[in-house]
Structures are given as C-alpha cells and as structure tokens.
C-alpha cells in the first residue's frame, strides 16, 4: 500500500521533529515554563491512564487520586537516601527495613508502578464485581482509604507531615520520555486484541461475553494496567514537586484528571493528550483570574478560586452540550488530515486506525 509508506514516512519525520522540538524547548524555556511543561507530561500520563479504564473499557473508576498517592509514596521512599529519611521522620523514626533502602530513580519508578499495579489488581478483583455508579463509588472509597492509611501510617509514610526534600529527578526528558513511552504503549495496546476486547466490553458487555471474551479477566487487566500507569505518574509527580503529603491525594484530585479526559473525549488517546496539555497550560495562563495578590494570609481584591470556577463550568458545558468532548472516540491519523485537505491525497480509500 502506497499510503502506508507515506504514513510511515510522515510518522518518522514527525517523531524526529518532535524530538528536535524537545531539544529546542530544553534550551529556550525558562525554569517556570519548564515546570509547567513537565507537568503537562505528567498529566498526559494520568489522563491516558484514566482514559484506558473509563474511556476504553467503559468502567467508571474514580480511584486515581489514591493510586497516584501510592505511586508517589512508593517512589519517594525508595529513592530517598537514608539521611533524607532520618531528616524527614523526626516525629517518629521510620521502620528499620525501609531506612536503608536506596535505589536509583528508574528502579524506584518501576517499583512504584508495579506496586500500584499490584494494589490496583487487588482492588480490581474486589471492586470490579460492581458496575456503573457502584463501581465509581467503591473506587472512590478505596482512594479515600488509601489516603487515610497514608495519613495514619506514621512509621512508613511520615503521616500528615509528608515527605520533603525529595531529589528533583523528574527532568524534562524523564517526564516527556515517560509520556511518550506510555502513549506508544497505549496505542499498541488499544490496537491489539486486548484493546479490541476492552472496547467490546465498553460497547456491550453481554455481547462481548457471548463472543467468548473473559469479561472479568479483561476488566481486571485493564484496571491493573491503568493502576500501573497511574503509579508511574505518581512517582514522576513526587520527584517533580519534591514535597508530597497525603492531602494532595484527596479524591477531588481525580476530578481534575476526569476534567481532562472528558474535555478531550472519553475514549480518545489524541483527545486526552491534547486536553492534558491545553488544560495544564491554561491553568497557568488563567492564573490572573485569581487576582493579582493571592498570598493566602493577605486579603486582596482578587478572587481566589475563580480559575477553578471557569474549569468546572467548562466541564458542565461540555458534558451538557457536547458530550463527545474534543475528539469523541476518534484519533489523530495522517489519513484523517488528508481527508480534510491538510495533506495531499494519495492512494485509494483507506480506513484510519
């Protein structure tokens, strides 16, 4: 097929351009912009992970905040040096078996993903017997239970004090490298037979079961993979913020990610990526809405919180008037670009992926 080679060529060129662009950004962005840029990548991973379970498998899960917290704590505790741990745990010493553990970033990050994936698997086996809103509320419950445990397990997590002074491992390359790897993985997964099984469960569970798909097994698999990705994002977030505490993983955090997924289109990888970047960037761009001086203790004429009103109103408008979000369930493809005339047409009719 002629068009395949054209598409492959275009993909190759776009990848090169993308990497070149990352180099340019690395050189030109100032520290502040770079922080936002890194946050975009972390939110991309979070949105993709939530979209895998909510959009592609059709299971409404609200447990991401807690799972993210689990990943963040696992990664942080593995990557901190014993000296840093002793500094942090001044109220009550850390459990001895955790004190001397000190791993480089990559193994810590993978361990965070695997541990969160394991916990996700456990939760999935328990919770996925429920459906729809019951599943949502049960996963939300698990998220809160994780947060409460993080707050109270003082000798392991340092409780409400949180962990401070984590090494700033999450560079632009780590953040965007992970985001790209996750995207590629997810695209391949969705195109595989597993992805088709996920989508068939979303579209009609009973028909999927009749076609011989192990519905429960597939749901658990999807939930586990989603948790794994969420744990990775949590680990990156921990070493991006360098300070974590259980309050950050209150279940409202899940709604931030849900906002991104709904705006982008429930069931579209492209949509999630675009929306993650757009929302993260506009959260910063719209900061002026909150007023010029917002120092917390100082009363100003600004109206702190107006920015979030904007985003929540946007969510309402989208869900009421344009439920499919930005992309619906469609994806970016070169052929789609060709169809709307942005690329020269070649070859016969093709189907897009």
């Amino acid at each position, binding site marked *: 097929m002629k068009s395949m080679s054209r598409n492959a060529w275009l993909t190759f060129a776009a990848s090169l351009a993308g990497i070149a662009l990352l180099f340019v950004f690395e050189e030109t962005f100032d520290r502040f912009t770079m922080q936002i840029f890194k946050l975009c990548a972390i939110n991309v991973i979070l949105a993709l992970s939530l979209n895998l379970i*909510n959009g592609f498998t059709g299971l409404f899960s609200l447990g991401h905040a807690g799972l993210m917290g689990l990943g963040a704590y696992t990664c942080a505790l593995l990557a901190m040096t014993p000296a840093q741990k002793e500094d942090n745990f001044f109220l009550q010493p850390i459990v001895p078996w955790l004190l001397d553990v000190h791993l480089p970033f990559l193994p810590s990050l993978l361990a965070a993903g695997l541990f969160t994936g394991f916990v996700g698997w456990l939760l999935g086996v328990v919770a996925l017997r429920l459906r*729809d809103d019951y599943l949502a*509320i049960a996963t939300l419950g698990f998220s809160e239970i994780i947060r409460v445990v993080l707050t109270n397990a003082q000798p392991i997590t340092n409780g409400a004090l949180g962990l401070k002074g984590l090494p700033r491992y999450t560079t632009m390359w780590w953040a965007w490298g992970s985001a790209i790897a996750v995207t590629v993985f997810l695209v391949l997964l969705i195109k595989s037979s597993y992805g088709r099984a996920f989508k068939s469960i979303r579209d009609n569970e009973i028909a999927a079961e009749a076609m011989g798909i192990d519905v429960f097994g597939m749901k658990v698999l999807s939930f586990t993979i989603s948790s794994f990705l969420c744990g990775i994002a949590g680990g990156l977030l921990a070493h991006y913020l360098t300070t974590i505490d259980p309050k950050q993983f209150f279940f409202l955090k899940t709604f931030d990610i849900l906002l991104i997924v709904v705006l982008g289109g429930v069931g579209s990888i492209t949509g999630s990526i675009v929306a993650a970047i757009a929302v993260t960037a506009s959260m910063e761009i719209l900061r002026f809405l909150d007023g010029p001086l917002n120092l917390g203790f100082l009363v100003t004429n600004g109206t702190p919180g107006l920015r979030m009103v904007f985003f929540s109103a946007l969510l309402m408008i989208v869900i009421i008037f344009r439920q499919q979000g930005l992309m619906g369930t469609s994806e970016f493809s070169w052929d789609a670009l060709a169809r709307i005339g942005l690329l020269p047409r070649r070859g016969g009719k093709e189907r897009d992926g």
Partner: protein
Amino acid sequence: MTEAGNLAGLREAAPSQAELDRRDTEKSQKIDVSVFSVSGSISMDLQTFLQQFVNALSLGSLYALIAIGYTMVYGILRLINFAHGDIFMIGGYLAFYGVGIFAMPWWLSACLAIALTTVFGVGLERAAYRPLRDSPRISIMISAIGASFLIENLAIVLFDARPKAFPVPGLFAANHVVGGIHVASVSLIIPLVTAVLLAILLWIVHRTRTGMAMRAVSTDIEAARLMAVDVDRIVSVTFAIGSALAAIGGILFALKYPRLEPLMGIMPGMKCFIAAVVGGIGSIGGAVLGGLLLGLIELMTIAFLPELTGYKDAFAFILLIAVLLFKPTGLLGRNQGEKV
C-alpha cells in the same frame, strides 16, 4: 468587602470538626471519672456508652436526614446526586448569612434558607440533570460530579474559603445534665426534628397522590409515564424534598458543629450516600437505618478504640465496600434483576 468587618468576630474561633469530636470524647471521659468517684454506682463503660449513644443518635439522625435525599433521587432517577452534599453546605451558609448580615431572627433565617435551598436544588436538576436524562448513565454521573465541583468552587469564590463560625442561638447551645450524661439541646433537637420530618415524609409518600406517583416513577419510569404521571413534575418534587431535607440537615449540622466552610459538604455527603447504600438505596426506612448505624459505628469506635480515631473517615468507606460486596441491595433494599 464590607461584610468582612462585620463577620471578622464570628470567624475567629471556629474549631474544626475533628477538634469538636475530640472534645466530645474528652468531655465524656471526664464525666466518667467524676461519676465514678462520686457515686460509683454506674460502671464507667456504661456511662461512656450512654454518653456516646446520645451523641451517636444525634449524629446518626443528621446522617439519616441527608441520606433520605440521596435515596429518593437514586430511587427515581438511578443517579448518585454528587451535589447533594453541596446543597447541604448551601443550606448552612444561607442560614448564616440571614442571621449574620441581614440580622434576621434565627427561625426566619432558617425558613428562608430552607426555601432558597429547595429552589436551588430544583434548579440544579433542571439545569444539569434534565438535559441528560436519556444519555448514558456515565454522562449524567459526570454531570453530577461537575455540578458538585462547580458549586464547591463557586462557594469558595462567593462565600470565601476561610471557615466561618456559625452563630448558635442560646436555645440550642444550652447544656443539660441527665443522669450524669451531658447533653446539648441541639443533640436532643436533631433526633426530634428528624423523627417529625420522617413522619411527614412517610405520610407524603404513602398517603398522597404525589407520593403514589413518586412510588410509581421509582418502580418503572416508562410505565408511570404511560399512566399519565407527569414524570418531570415528580422528579422536581423529589429534588425539592431532598434539597429541603438537606438544607435542614445543613443548618442542624452547623448548630452542632458551628463551623462553615465551602467544602464542608463533601465528607458528610459521601458518608450519607454510604448510609443510603448500607440501608438499601431507594428505601427511606433503609436510609434512616443506615444513617443511625453509621453514626453509631463512627462514634463508638472513637470512644472505645481511640487509637483508631485517625481512621475515622475510612470506616464509612470500608463499611460501604463490605456491604456492596456481600449484600449489594443493602439491609432493607429490594433486589432488582439485571435486565439484558
């Protein structure tokens, strides 16, 4: 901001709910000791138990009041009204502004707050839920989450994120000592109000035509429509009743824990939803039972296993998951077959 000056005094001393819970427990423990030393007739544990039982009864009745709103909406629309906890918050704030800014007597302020909150609840259904009634359940649920998110953020902007101290009329704050047990008036008033409202509600649902229509809609919305039931009106009435109960709950909650903040509805909201599920969602009696049970479990655990106090907010969720796994219909719920 002129109100800031007026309210500054009210804002200062606003203890957190956790703090208040702790004080409750401490108070009861102190009482134990004094009773023990003076009379020595009542055993210490029984005393603690009775004290906590009174506390649990009032907290549980509050939970019940709010759980009824969840259960009624779910029974009719199969929708978890995530914004119900925020309606509860609005009820508390409106009563506060009535007294604090417009200097109304507390009873007038409370009545107005209940009326306005009811209007708000009905309006919310019109704006956020009705356009999506025929959409997939996930969409309408996201809409509920979005509505809750929007109300919370609006409340932060309009009401200010800093906690406000709720002015408690003397009538409610008075403290009685009955047989060595300290009881604030409000702790007695809450179960009474709940009982009266429950009686009225049961009368409406079982003895009026509107109630009959509500039961019809909750059994089968399509069949009810065919029987010439005005479904939209019934849904509005349901939201009105639920929101009024939430507003009363919010005001009573503010009387018991006199501290208002924009996010105060979230945790009670979640817990009351859990209470509704535990009791069997769709069943009014179940919501009351679930609310009382949840209040009892929460306070008894704090009283008798104080080392678990930090895990207080997790109890409800653990209970929820256990109920969902072992008896998904709840204690009093009816089994509804899954349709293909």
